[in-house]
C-alpha cells in the first residue's frame, strides 16, 4: 500500500518563514484537508508536496523513500491543480484536454471524452476555450484529473468558482479516486465534506511575524 509522508517540514518563502515542523501522513485511500487562515501556507504546502518548492527542512517520503531522490517517479504519480486554470483560449476545450492527456501518456482519443463528461462539459468539447466562463474553465482544469493514472491528487482550492452541482460531482470524483486506492490533499475554504478526511490545521505551525523577528535578532 502506498504511503505519502512528510516529517518536520519547514517552509521558507524567500527569507520569510511560513511554517515550521509540520508533519503529515497520507495513506492509500486517504484524504488530507488543509485548513488555516490566509497566508498560513496551504498553497505553499501543496507546492512543496508537488516538488515545485523545495522544503527548507524536513523530508517528504513515498513508501519510506525520500521523494527528492527520484523526482521523475514523483512527477509521474501526481496531479496538481493550482490557482491558475492553464486553459489556452485559442484551443478548443477538447484540444486543451487532449494536450494534457498526451503529456500524461494517456491516449487522447479514449481519455478526453469521459474526462469531459465526468464534469458535465462534454457539450462544450468543440468550443474554443475563450468562450468558456470562469466556472467552466475551472471544470476543464478539473477534468485533467480524470485523464491519467495519477495516484496523488494535490488540489489547491478546487471548489473556487464552482456551482453546487459541480462541487458534488467533484466530491464523487474524489470518492471514486480514493476507493481505487488514490490519495488526495486538498486546501479549501468552502466545505467539500470529504468522508473520513484528516484535517490539518496549518494555523498551529505558522511562524508568527513576532517570533520570526525575535529569532532573527537572537541569531
Amino acid at each position: 500500500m502506498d504511503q505519502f509522508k512528510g516529517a518536520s517540514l519547514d517552509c521558507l518563502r524567500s527569507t520569510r518563514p511560513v511554517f515550521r515542523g509540520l508533519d503529515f501522513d497520507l495513506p492509500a485511500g486517504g484524504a488530507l484537508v488543509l485548513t488555516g487562515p490566509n497566508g498560513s501556507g496551504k498553497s505553499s504546502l501543496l507546492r512543496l508536496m508537488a516538488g515545485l518548492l523545495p522544503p527548507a527542512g524536513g523530508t517528504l517520503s513515498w513508501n519510506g523513500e525520500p521523494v527528492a531522490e527520484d523526482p521523475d517517479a514523483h512527477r509521474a504519480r501526481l496531479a496538481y491543480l493550482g490557482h491558475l486554470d492553464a486553459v489556452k483560449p485559442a484551443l478548443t476545450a477538447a484540444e486543451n484536454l487532449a494536450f494534457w492527456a498526451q503529456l500524461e501518456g494517456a491516449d487522447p482519443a479514449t481519455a478526453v471524452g469521459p474526462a469531459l463528461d465526468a464534469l458535465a462539459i462534454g457539450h462544450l468539447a468543440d468550443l474554443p476555450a475563450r468562450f468558456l466562463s470562469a466556472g467552466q474553465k475551472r471544470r476543464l482544469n478539473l477534468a485533467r484529473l480524470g485523464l491519467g493514472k495519477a495516484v496523488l491528487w494535490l488540489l489547491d482550492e478546487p471548489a473556487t468558482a464552482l456551482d453546487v452541482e459541480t462541487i458534488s460531482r467533484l466530491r464523487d470524483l474524489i470518492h471514486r479516486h480514493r476507493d481505487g486506492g488514490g490519495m488526495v490533499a486538498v486546501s479549501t475554504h468552502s466545505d467539500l465534506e470529504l468522508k473520513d478526511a484528516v484535517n490539518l490545521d496549518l494555523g498551529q505551525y505558522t511562524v508568527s511575524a513576532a517570533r520570526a523577528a525575535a529569532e532573527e535578532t537572537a541569531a
Partner: protein
Amino acid sequence: MTGFRAILERDLRLALRQGMDSVMVVMFFVIAVVLFPLGVGPEPNTLARIAPGVLWVAALLSVLLSLERLFHNDFEDGSLELMALSPPSLEVVVLAKVLAHWLVTGLPLIIAAPVLAILMNMPADGFALLILALLLGTPALSLIGAVGAALVLGSRRGGVLLALLILPLFIPVLIFGVGAVEAAIGGFPARAPLLLLGAIFAATLALCPWGAAAGLRQALE
C-alpha cells in the same frame, strides 16, 4: 518522446491560430534592414559592403524581439507549472518549446533573408552561405535566448533585462555568421567559420536546455 511531440504540436497550433508572432518577427526584420539604405544612402557598393553584417544584426534583433514570449504566456496562465509537473522532464519541455519557437520565428527569417540580400545589393556568391549560416546560427540564438528568457521570467521589465543579458552572448554567432558570408563573397573558403557556427550550435544544443530548465525551476518556486 510523446511529451516532446505533444508540446511541439500544441505550440505550433497555438502559433498558427494566433498567427501574429511569425508575421511580427519577419516584419521587424524587413523594416530594420530597409532602414539601412535610407540611412546610409543608396550607394550600391557601400550597401554591398555592409550587407552581411546588417542582415545578421537585424536577424539577431528579430530573434531577441520574439524571445520574451517564449515562456511568458505559459508562465502567466499556469501551464508552465503543470508542464514542469508532468512526466516529461523540464529539459525536454524546454527543447520542444525552443524547436517550436525556431520553426515559427527562425525559419521565416531564413526565407526572408535572400530577398533582403537582393535589396542590399549583396553579391550573389554569398547567398547560399547566408542561408546555410543562418540555418546553423538561428537555432543557436533561440537556444541561448531560452536561457535568458527563463532567467527573466516573472521579473518586471523582463524585455530590457533579457536584451542586456543575452545580446553579449549572441556575439560569437554574429562574428562567425558574418565571417562565413564575407568569406564566400571574397572568394575564400568559408569552411572554418561554418564549422565554428556548427560547434556553437552543438554546444548550445547540449547545454542550454539544462540552463533554461534550471532557470524555470527557479521561477516556479
